[in-house]
């Protein structure tokens, strides 16, 4: 039985959420500003959204980012699920703790380090083996997969551990061989974690600046890279407009995902 929420906590929570969302609201509001200022309101206008649609560089980089994010998220879910399965279901095998560390370390490692190290790897590989030829979408996908894998592993691991082990044993007992058990029993029951893992990986990939900057090549700029260089030029409501679009998109998908998961509750 938990005690009620004290007024102090209620206010604190309110302020906390305010702190989290105020900057986002300023972004959205000033994307509709008629003037170039982002702090002085001078009337409602959609001009910045129009400008967005005409910015081909931006649009191409957004397309790059979407492709990368889709591939990286999918790869990350596959690898992350395998890793989580190995860690939770395979008992104590040699090298398990080491693998556990390896699987979750990308989560906390500063991205400048991972980015630099991956670039050096690609350069070294190119020198000695001829692959990868130059850097581009593929190298960014590899970099993002490596990062996102760790998140997926943790999510799936939690869900797997929660799942009753005897369900898989019962399926084995009834005559299904291990692969069948995985497909028919395990996967459906961990699917919420797989879906949220994919979405999380997608968002992380879409949003990553540092890794992409290190391992990108000519012609494979991602959206964050383009945004970053334009911020350096100075602030502009066009960026606000872009931010609003992204935020709206994310909000809708999160709500959708949340609603779907809610319905799937067993």
């Amino acid at each position, binding site marked *: 039985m938990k005690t009620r929420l004290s007024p102090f906590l209620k206010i*604190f*929570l309110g302020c906390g959420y305010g702190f989290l969302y105020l900057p986002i609201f300023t972004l959205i509001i000033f994307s509709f500003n008629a003037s170039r200022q982002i*702090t002085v309101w001078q009337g409602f206008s959609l001009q910045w959204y129009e400008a967005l649609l005409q910015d081909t560089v931006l649009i191409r980089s957004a397309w790059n980012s979407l492709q990368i994010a889709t591939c990286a998220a999918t790869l990350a879910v596959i690898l992350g699920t*395998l890793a989580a399965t190995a860690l939770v279901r395979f008992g104590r095998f040699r090298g398990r703790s080491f693998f556990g560390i390896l699987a979750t370390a990308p989560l906390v490692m500063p991205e400048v380090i991972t980015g630099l190290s991956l670039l050096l*790897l690609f350069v070294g590989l190119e020198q000695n083996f001829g692959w990868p030829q130059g850097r581009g979408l593929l190298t960014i996908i590899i970099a993002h997969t490596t990062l996102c894998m760790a998140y997926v592993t943790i999510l799936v691991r939690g869900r797997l551990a929660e799942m009753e082990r005897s369900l898989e044993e019962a399926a084995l007992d009834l005559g299904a061989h291990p692969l069948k058990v995985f497909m028919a029993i395990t996967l459906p029951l961990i699917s919420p974690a797989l879906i949220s893992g994919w979405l999380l990986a997608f968002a992380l990939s879409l949003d990553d600046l540092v890794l992409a900057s290190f391992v990108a090549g000519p012609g494979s700029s991602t959206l964050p890279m383009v945004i970053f260089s334009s911020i350096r030029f100075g602030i502009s409501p066009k960026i606000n407009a872009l931010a609003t679009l992204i935020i709206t998109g994310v909000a809708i998908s999160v709500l959708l995902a949340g609603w779907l998961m809610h319905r799937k509750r067993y």
Partner: protein
Amino acid sequence: MKKAWNKVSSLVTSPFMALVLPYGWSLLFFLIPFFIVLKISFSDLKMGLPPYGPLLEWVEEGVLTIRLNFSNYAFIGTDSLYLLSCLESLLIALLGTIGCLLIGYPMAYGLSKTSPRWRTVLLMLVVLPFWTSFLLRVYAWIGILSPHGFINTLLLKAGIIASPLTLLDTTFATVLGIIYCYLPFMILPLYASLEKIDFTLTEAAYDLGARPFQVFLKVIIPLSFPGIIAGSMLVLIPSVGEFVIPELLGGSQTLMIGKLLWNEFFTNHDWPVASSLAILMLIFLIIPLAIFQQFQERQVRFLDED
């Protein structure tokens, strides 16, 4: 036929196979690169692509030399710029972590006490900002903190100040940025930890005569310790190497290693020095990393043993 298929499928799903892919990937694309960074940190700067000299060289027939260039380390070791930036990075990261704790703990605590109906929604609201662009959220603060920004305009109009405050391009802004961006990383583990607390323990404490504040200090905080550690590590470790936040909000005054590494790499094209900086960062982070891994292992053991 069925026997052959069974054999194949049990091999495919044997620990070996399910492990080979992620393990192999992690080894190749995460672990081995670190060793390459180590190697490059010992080579010297050369013009051309790639801009570093080789470590191993065949000088003559059958003679192999290894050139270990320690000058990079000497360079960053003696130049006070780099030492200062290390310290400043740690300091800023620490301040950011503490800030996250101070704001995040009451929020997590409050969340753990809300009714289950609201809780999912509220939790989602905490996570939602995290899903929108990191870059753009930092960008938003530029708009808020700049001399013509939101805060200054408000304060000027209200007559509280006469001239705009310098809020942007300061260490303060960097710390604020870190707190803002990493807050969800602190709240979620804290919430998970607080939610698990058996509140009959606090009831027992009350029953024994303790006052609410004492209960909070002596019962709740110690019990949520795993969450505190997890959250702190999740904030501290990446913050030390942060680049975007000090770059956009910190200005030229703020020295953080992440920024320095970036500059060495992209501006000076000095890959060896950048590599030595990376190694230096890793050394700094070994202890927090170890703490984090220890905590992870304990969590895992808790989850896996049943």
